[in-house]
Structures are given as structure tokens and as C-alpha cells.
């Protein structure tokens, strides 16, 4: 009796193992298939780009499109790739500024809402959630009219400030959650020992909350790096162009240059993807709350 039971158990285990690996294979193809399409397109030689059916495995790896963007962009035939490196630098500057401001300012506010008796706490937190969910396009028009009036159009600092106000609600949201998960007694002990509340914040809370701060920073940076709508509306010149905007401009003018487009797309994706993988452990928890908002 017992033997039969165990044999049946093993059989169903084998079946579920097979199912699991089938599922995993599907999962990997689904998740990475489109990424693979971009990567091979970026290294496929020009004459194979237009093959019918498409070249699933290019005959040789051709990195000339990357060279065109990164090194030979000054050549007259590479006019489309011109300024792309500059746009990567712009994106990096803006994202760094947004990250710095969001995490420093957001962590202070998050602490206040996690630990101090703030009035209208529930209502304010609801408002933060609402502003976080509000699509940029809904408030872009009045912002645009105002920014144009005060002469701050087409400046990187404008992007930093605007994107900050979009990333702060989420930063406060996840850091508040993180601060709430820390034991309150540690701060109380520090304060009993003569530390002020601000001292306890800097000496006890921040060191303990490092993972949360990393997660918040990674989110702010990736969110700003990938921002498209705000740069589209608030910048216009090549000097302030960000990488996603530069990629979108390549589509408009040079649609059939698949190789160039894919190489530019890959270059624009490296930084956020590497960051997401580096901070994977920190980001995963926050992603649950944040990634669905679009």
C-alpha cells in the first residue's frame, strides 16, 4: 500500500518537474525573445537586415552601428547618430540630479510620515498615492504654459525639477514603508541616551535603512532615465535631448535603419538594465508596488 503511494507520488513529481521546465522555457523565451530581437538587430550586417524571412542568427557580428554612434558620429554619413552620446550624458546628469533630490528630500518626509504624529496623515498619504498615479499628460499642459512663461523651457534643470516632483511621491511611499518596518526601539534607545531626534535619524535610522534607500535611489534613477513624455514636452534642442527622446527621433527620420535604431536602443537600455540587475534584491520588493503604474 505504502509502496504504491510512493510510486504515484514520484510519478506526479516527475510530471510536475517536466511541466515546470516547460513553463520555465516558455518564460525565458517570452521575457528575453524581444530583447534578443533588439540585440541581434543591432549587430546584423546591413545587407542581412532586410532578409525575408529575417536573419535569426546573423552570419557575423557587425558592431559598426555601435562604432557609428560612439566614435564616428562626426562623419558626414553618420548624421543620424550625431549627438547620441551627448544625449546619454544628458540623461545621466538629469537622472543623477533627480535621484539625489528625491532620496534626500523624500527620505526626510518619509521619516516624518512613518514616525511623527503628522496631522491629516491618512489624507496626505492618499494624496501622495493619487499624484503618483496621475499620468504626466494630465498636468503637462498648465505646466507647459507656466514654464514657458517664466522662461525655463529647454533646460536640463527644468527636467530635474519636474521629474523630481513625479518621482518623490513614490520615493516617500516606499521609504515610509521601509522606515515602518524598522524597530522603533532602536531610535528610542538612542534618544534616551541623549541623541536628538534628528541625530537618531542620521545615526540610527539611515544606516539601518540603507537597503531601502538603495531601492528608492534605483527607482528614481531608472524612472528618470526612462522618462519620455516630460523631455518630449519640455526640451526642444539637441543640447538638452535625453536618450529616449533621441531614440524616438531616429524612428521618425530613419525608419528603415534597423541596425542604427537597435544599437541606439541597446545603448539607451544598458544603464537602467544593469542598475536593475545590480540592485535586483532591493528593487524587487519595491517593484511590486510601483511597476504597474505604467
Amino acid at each position: 500500500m505504502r509502496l504504491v503511494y510512493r510510486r504515484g507520488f514520484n510519478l506526479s513529481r516527475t510530471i510536475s518537474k517536466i511541466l515546470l521546465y516547460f513553463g520555465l522555457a516558455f518564460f525565458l523565451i517570452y521575457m528575453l525573445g524581444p530583447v534578443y530581437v533588439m540585440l541581434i538587430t543591432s549587430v546584423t550586417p546591413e545587407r542581412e537586415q532586410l532578409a525575408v524571412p529575417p536573419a535569426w542568427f546573423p552570419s557575423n557580428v557587425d558592431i559598426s552601428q555601435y562604432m557609428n554612434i560612439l566614435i564616428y558620429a562626426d562623419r558626414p554619413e553618420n548624421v543620424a547618430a550625431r549627438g547620441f552620446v551627448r544625449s546619454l550624458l544628458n540623461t545621466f546628469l538629469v537622472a543623477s540630479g533627480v535621484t539625489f533630490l528625491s532620496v534626500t528630500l523624500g527620505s526626510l518626509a518619509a521619516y516624518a510620515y512613518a514616525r511623527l504624529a503628522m496631522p491629516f496623515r491618512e489624507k496626505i498619504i492618499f494624496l501622495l498615492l493619487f499624484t503618483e498615479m496621475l499620468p504626466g499628460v494630465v498636468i503637462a499642459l498648465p505646466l507647459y504654459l507656466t514654464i514657458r512663461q517664466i522662461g525655463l523651457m529647454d533646460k536640463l534643470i527644468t527636467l530635474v525639477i519636474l521629474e523630481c516632483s513625479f518621482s518623490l511621491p513614490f520615493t516617500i511611499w516606499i521609504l515610509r514603508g521601509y522606515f515602518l518596518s524598522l524597530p522603533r526601539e532602536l531610535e528610542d534607545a538612542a534618544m534616551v541616551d541623549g541623541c536628538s531626534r534628528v541625530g537618531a535619524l542620521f545615526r540610527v535610522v539611515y544606516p539601518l535603512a540603507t537597503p531601502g534607500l538603495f531601492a528608492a535611489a534605483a527607482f528614481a534613477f531608472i524612472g528618470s532615465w526612462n522618462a519620455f513624455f516630460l523631455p518630449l514636452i519640455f526640451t526642444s534642442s539637441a543640447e538638452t535631448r535625453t536618450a529616449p527622446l533621441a531614440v524616438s527621433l531616429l524612428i521618425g527620420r530613419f525608419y528603415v535603419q534597423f541596425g542604427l535604431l537597435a544599437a541606439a536602443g541597446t545603448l539607451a537600455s544598458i544603464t537602467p538594465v544593469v542598475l536593475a540587475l545590480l540592485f535586483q534584491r532591493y528593487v524587487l520588493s519595491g517593484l511590486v508596488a510601483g511597476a504597474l503604474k505604467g
Partner: protein
Amino acid sequence: MRVLSQPEQRPLRQRRFMLSDRWLGWLLVAPSFLFIFGLLGYPLLYSLTIMFMDLNITRPWIGPQFVGLGNFIDMVQNSEFWASLGRTLYFAAVSIVLGTPIALVFAIILNQDFPLRGLARGLMMIPWAIPHVVNGVIWARIYDANYGMLNGLLYQFWIIQGYIPWLTNPNLALFLIVVAEVWVSTPGLTLLFLAGLQTIPSELYEAASCDGAGVLQKFWYITLPLLKPMGLVALVLKTISAFGIFDIIYVLTGGGPANSTQVLGYYIYMESFKYLHVGYGAALSYVIAAIILGLVFIYSRILRFEGVQETV
């Protein structure tokens, strides 16, 4: 100071701490709130005034005119508004119907024990981390009419006889964009369900096994009911996100062909920034903001009453 002279008062030190805590709180939140409510609240107030106006930007000789509820009447009477709203709801519905089962299956897979599980979870974040515009580029390559991967794949497997111009077909374009968006949002949805799965105590499954329940029964009677809160969260968040869809449509179709992919977010963009119907755009924005306010209210109720707060 009058307080000091009364001997029965509570220790001064404690009271001063209370007071300073309150001021400290305001001090800590002030910079953030200046950013958030200054830069997001002010436009909403500004919209309040211009949505009753026609600024006549394209006809400057007329100047701003007060039109009362005119913009809202225009909106209700404009078939393009209703069509865009319909497309947005279609977008939300299809992306939920397609995206939820995929994410649920992936979450169940990632919840099993297998070697390199951490790596699989990490790789899943790649579609999420890639800029939306670049996602658009990838899917433009896949859907390309003459050299695309989708055509190539279907052709090689004899599913289609000749190449099909996918995105220029008004009946297919929006559906294909939803498919691309489902791919982009699968990581977030999967992680949501994964978080939900991890809150289900394993004792429930063990007890069910003792009572002779099979895999499917356990899924049907334990997993699904206990994932209901997460399902509700996903439903509301996906609906909210449908109202903000912009980047991928800008890259893939620009709202075309024949406006067939013009969802509400894109409609506002066109009205406000392309046709410069500023008052009308502001009125539209307010309606969307009100819809989202309602959805966020529902969302916060779900978080509170279904007990999802701790896991999210």
C-alpha cells in the same frame, strides 16, 4: 512663561519635545511638499481656470474668451472623445485578460524550487528596466510589415501565406499594441502575484493534501481565492495605467491608422500640444484626473480592507 509658574504642570522637557516634534515634522516634509504639491497642485489649480476658457492660441487676434461649460459640452458631443475613452477601456480590458493569466502562471513557476531561481527573477526585470521608447522600437521591429519578426515567424511556420502589414490595419493595430504593453508590464504583474503567493501559508496546502486534494483542486480552492485581493489590486492598477499609456503609442503608430490607436492619454496630447486647444485640453485633463481619483480611492480601499498593505 505663565505655564512655567504652575507647579502641577507636567515636566517642561516632555512638552517641549512634543512641540519640537511637530515643527520638526513640518520641516522634514516641507521641501518634498513644495516639489509635489507646488509643481503638481499648481497646474491642477491653473487648469481649473483655463478649462472654462478658450485661449485661442491659434487665433491670437481674438484673445482669451470665457466659454463657461463650453469645453465640457464640446467634449460630451465629440465622438472622438467617446471613441478614445472606449479604446482606453478596451486597452485596459484586453491587457487584463491577456496579462493576468500569463503573470499568474509565471508567478507560480517562480514560486517553485529550482536551481538559479534568483537569476530567473532577475532576468524578468529586463523588460521593465528598458525604456518604454526602446520597447516601442523593439516591437516596431517585430511588427514591421516588410522585414518584421512576427511576419517571418508566421511565414516560416506556414501560418500565413504572405507578409501582413500589421500596424496599418485599423482593426489589429490597437490589439497588437496591447500585446506589446502586456509584455512590458508582465514583470510587475508577476511580482505582484508572487508576493501574493508567498503570503499563503504552506500548512493550507499540506492540510489539503492530507484530505486528498489534487494539484488542480488546491489551485482552485486555495490559491485562487487567496489571490483575490492581489487580483483586485492588479485590476485597478492596470485600469489606471491604461489612462496613462502614451510612449509606446507615440513610437509605434502615433495614434493611427485612422485614429484607431488613439487612447485618451494620446488624445489629450494631440488636443493640447498639436491642435493647441488649450481650454479643451484642460477640461479633458480634469475629467481624466477625476476618473483616476476615483480609481485610486477604490485602490486605497482594497489595500486597507483586503489586507494587502503589508505585502505591497
